[in-house]
């Protein structure tokens, strides 16, 4: 049973435009959410996180939005750059101190120059 779901497995976007990645979760006990970015032949790297006490967290070009009632979060990348072409994983856990992460299957993003 997949507790973290990422549909629309691939996304193509023009350089400079916005990339929006979506993530849904089923476990209502999740209260800490993360996005990881992965290049081919490399491990995932941490990008941004959000606690359930917030509905938005911003870090440079990356913003994560959380809608707890809908059990939905999204990652916005503005403006998209060619170096953002990668697979993006959504992950969640029950509590910021809990190291048991549940991952989605990832979204492939291709930024077209």
């Amino acid at each position: 049973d997949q507790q973290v779901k990422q549909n629309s497995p691939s996304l193509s976007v023009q350089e400079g435009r916005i990339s929006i990645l979506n993530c849904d979760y089923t476990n209502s006990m999740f209260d800490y959410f993360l996005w990881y970015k992965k290049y081919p032949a490399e491990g995932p790297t941490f990008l941004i996180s959000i606690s359930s006490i917030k509905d938005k967290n911003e870090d440079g070009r990356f913003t994560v939005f959380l809608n707890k009632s809908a059990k939905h979060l999204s990652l916005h990348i503005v403006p998209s750059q060619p170096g953002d072409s990668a697979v993006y994983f959504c992950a969640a856990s029950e509590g910021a101190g809990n190291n048991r992460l549940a991952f989605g299957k990832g979204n492939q993003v291709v930024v077209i120059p």
Partner: protein
Amino acid sequence: DTAVSQTPKYLVTQMGNDKSIKCEQNLGHDTMYWYKQDSKKFLKIMFSYNNKELIINETVPNRFSPKSPDKAHLNLHINSLELGDSAVYFCASSQGRKDTQYFGPGTRLTVL
């Protein structure tokens, strides 16, 4: 100066063999993990060690045995390899039970 390193990067072996994957981190973290990414691309946690103590042990066949000789190392030994063990295995580390986990580059295991 790689933060989390794994060896080997690629491993091709026959069914029934025993193999090991090594992981080392130089971040000074005290918690380490093994994840498996299967053919469907799902990343699933297998084990976690904190200060050399096993704290997470998911439903993994007992052919898989992690070993942590010290805080900086977490090795994964797999006995009697099966076709279904073919996957990419990622090692990760974090400081304490925080969720910012730093991943190694992965080991692609192919069982023939």
